[in-house]
């Protein structure tokens, strides 16, 4: 009983505290960089799409709001043919970013995505792709991975030995 009264007194005293509310539309809040807002697709340091269409973001998505189709260019570099996020379903949980092995998909501090028409919340690859590396500069999946793409043959990735010549007689 005493406890409850004490609580009430403390709460009552809050009358004299400063209000923490930020009056949002009039006053812009300061959003931390790791805020989980609008999702983007980033590019690697060479300006190519980072997304390799591995489908892990789609699999991780608890509301299944990511759909994509993988395709390859003539040199074997894989990328998404289309990449669609239905933001009217997205819950901004950030699992897609955690699942992404290439740092391609990232959540940004932008949250002002209101629309009058739900259709406008469906973002295609063109709407998602940005021109920079986003939060993670420097990483380029294809420089590390052992697949050959245009401009990088076998054995030219990081920490790779030159390819074995299967016709060599040397032991």
């Amino acid at each position, binding site marked *: 009983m005493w406890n409850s009264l004490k609580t009430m007194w403390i709460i009552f005293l809050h009358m004299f505290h400063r209000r923490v509310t930020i009056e949002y539309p009039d006053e812009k809040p300061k959003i931390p960089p790791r805020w989980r807002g609008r999702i983007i697709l980033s590019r690697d340091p060479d300006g190519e799409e980072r997304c*390799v*269409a*591995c*489908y*892990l973001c*789609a*699999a991780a*998505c608890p*509301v*299944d*709001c*990511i*759909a*994509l*189709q*993988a*395709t*390859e260019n003539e040199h074997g570099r*894989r990328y998404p043919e289309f990449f*669609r*996020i*239905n933001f*009217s*379903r997205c819950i901004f949980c950030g699992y897609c970013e955690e699942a992404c*092995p*290439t740092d391609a998909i990232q959540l940004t501090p932008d949250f002002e995505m209101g629309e009058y028409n*739900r*259709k406008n*919340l*469906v973002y*295609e690859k063109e709407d998602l792709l940005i021109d920079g590396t986003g939060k993670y500069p420097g990483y380029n*999946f294809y420089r*590390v*991975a*052992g*697949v*050959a793409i245009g401009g990088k043959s*076998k*054995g030219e*990735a990081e*920490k*790779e*030995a*030159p*390819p*074995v010549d*299967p016709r*060599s007689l040397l*032991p």
Partner: protein
Amino acid sequence: MKRAAPGVNTARVCKCEADVTTIHIDNRPYPAKDGENLLQECLSLGFNLPYFCWHPALGSVGACRQCAIKQFKNEEDKRGKIVMACMTAAKDGIRISIDDPEAREFRASVAEWLMVNHPHDCPVCDEGGECHLQDMTVMNGHVYRRHRGRKRTFHNQDLGPLVNHEMNRCIQCYRCTRFYRDYAGGRDFDALMLRDQVYFGRYQDGVLESEFSGNLVEVCPTGVFTDKTLKRHYTRKWDLQTAPSVCVHCGLGCNTIPGERYGTLRRIRNRFNGAVNGYFLCDRGRYGYEFVNSGRRIRQPLLRKHGTAPLQLASKRDALQRLGEILSSGARAIGIGSPRASIEANFALRTLVGRDQFYLGLSERDSRLLASILDILKKGPARTPSLHEVELADAVLVLGEDVANTASRLGLALRQAVRRQPEKMAIKMGIPLWNDHAVREAMQEERGPLFIATMADTRIDDIATRTFRGPPDELGRLGFAVAHALDPTAPQVPDLSSTIQTLAETIAEKLKAAERPLVISGMGCGDKAVVEAAANVAWALCNTGHAAGLCYAVPECNSLGAAMLGGDSLESALEAMDDGAVDTLIIMENDLYRRTDAAMVDRLLAVTRHIVMIDHIEHATSAKADVVLPAATFAEADGTLVNNEGRAQRFFQVFVPGNDIKDDIRGDVTGDIRESWRWLRDIIVAAGRGDDARWSSLDDVTAACARAIPNLEPILHAAPSSDFRIDSQKIPREPHRYSGRTAMHANVSVQEPEQPGDPDSPLSFSMEGYPGNPPPSLIPRFWAPGWNSVQALNKFQDEVGGPLKGGDPGERLIEPMQGKKVAYFQNVPGGFKPCAGEWLLLPMHHVFGSEELSILAPAIAELSPQPYLALNPADASDLGLAAGDEVQLHLRQRTDAPADGLTGTEPMATAEIYRLPVRFKPELLHGTAGLPAGLPGLGVLAGIALPAWGELKKAEKGIAEKGKAEKGKQVEE
């Protein structure tokens, strides 16, 4: 319980029946089979023991060191020693530990070593998400890469349009070569180099020769070999909507799992059926699926306003209304069914037109052949074996059928059958059969008796004891001679050459000496004498007290089922048309131009007032129809197929074609694709006879069919009916990780469409439903917690390598008449006599190309040969032909075949002259020539019933080009 297992473990012919003993795993007793390897027993008991190189069908070699366990001497022994489970036999009282810390650490370190050179590319690897290496790495708990050195790399090879090569991912388990060389008999692929540089590939870039190369995709535990057709429209396993299905590209009825995403079929995977295909599929079955996505699909009803008007898109209502008008205006319609359509579809057509107006849609010769095969299997004493039983046969005679090309999976089964006799040596030496390397060392090049008598060389000749080449008549004579040698009461063959006589005696002797002799023949050489000769051999064996098997290869997925429905040939249909009482032709899933002579089909179609076509692919016949209705392929429909064994198997719809989804997701490719039986039901209703077909689901059709045709009654039990539920839930076609549900249609409408219902099966088009293992005929995919790769299959079998839990799916419709004496066939053909100036054209079958649907898949088309005419080099030089020259072919008029049921002797296409490049086949007899069967590039020639006589002439170089152009035109038609 006796267990029949495919592959290595199946060879129980001479092995003592498995005794159950007790083994102790981590101090608890478990039952196990005496002498079996511990890895298999542990997996059968449900333990998760990692492994790589072992495969239930390939046996143990102990190469990867991954299945390490601790073995203890006795109860007091606390130290134990590490052994490889796959190389240790389960003996009574053996004490082992899987959980022992030292064994765990050992296994983890093996995984770590294997990962030392593994590239950092799972995100772009097609195996990702269904990778055995991923599963095992997780199972071993290897998470951190300590190795800081450089990774070894390789260049890849281009292995053709089917299999993609990415050598960096290899972990050197040797499964690929063991399958490709040891199991499937391929020669052009091997392990090269040594130590950590071992390279699995060909001596140079090039198409893998074996027609089983696609199995490397499933055999490889990681992503070295992946499906190249899937790569073009790549989808992860968890995103594929799958359903149990049956292959439609030959008569064997292999079980498959097709996968769909975004409305297109993406790939086919093997669906284990211990009695049929076991662990492996042929490449035609695996890669032929792309016809479903073909641009030649009929997606909307087409109508012809009047006689010469072009076909125009029409609504479903208009088309049905038109059909109702035609059928209720007193017209008498006949229906032409198809051996590539399901029993239910054929039955629905039979119901529409009436039993007597139903025709099978085969040429006179083919329908007679089929009827006689069915008759032989039903009335004779010889049992038709399943593919698994073929593997168990220990002496085989192949008469007339090029099985490697017409029924490839049967060829693979024969490669196992020849191991049955030499395996006895290994058993005598005390080597358990799972010890693969030791067994092969013991066997060396020894093989069991396999005699191959065919028209031309086959790809399984390398394992044959003796081969024999000749035209069908000669093959038939050989068969009759063998039968006579086995049982003197069988008819004698007059004027037999001594070589054939001795060959026949050798064959008879070997067959007689075998425990499970088997005779294989088929419709491939189009000759009734060959079919009958094969029956005589099998019956002669049965009559002399040998349990002989008799296996006929039939060309299409439901040949036998259609034959059981009955129905006359196309020639009889023409006869009925000529009577004038009939004016409407309803053709279902059948391109008549592939069935018989073009001229005859032309006449048949010309005398008909209304031609109605129900099919999924545009072809020459559909182009002439007045009403075309879009039918569903195997992936869009459910139905029952009867394979060459007489096994009825249900295939289930994989996806709903775009038209049924409530929004217009597929853009302008929306359509009205529906199951043939649904179209036919609606036609029956439109014709005002709705009472005949009160069918709302496939079960109703199947039940009506079983009622109407008592022989087909077992098809009811081929799979559970549509009201089957587990825990009152349906079985989901989509895996529980299926992604993109709320985004895949969002570009069209943000309102998600309702999940389509499925009144026809206990499966649902959804990720919701019963999460456990369904009954064997309803398994939509193999997956188990921790086992994302195909190896999850282990969890679906009673005993690893054995039949599926609940028994292998399928219902046998045909059982032999035991103990009844049957009269032998007496029509021994005369020997082949060459005709001066004329050649007997023999059909040359091609695994890639001869089948109607698979050739529409780009990858198969790429491997299919160009049209050619094969000649003996001596004959060719007589004609003045050199390699690369073109030959003119002039078919003999069909006046010499009054027995074919044609009224009168119509001159057939007398002026048709064909030009074909010549190819040499030294094994062809003088006076015979080979013509590839069924290639679309042949144009109207594809429909000619072979063998047939024709005149050959060297083509003039100058006109050759022009001729080609003309041919090209015909093909387009």
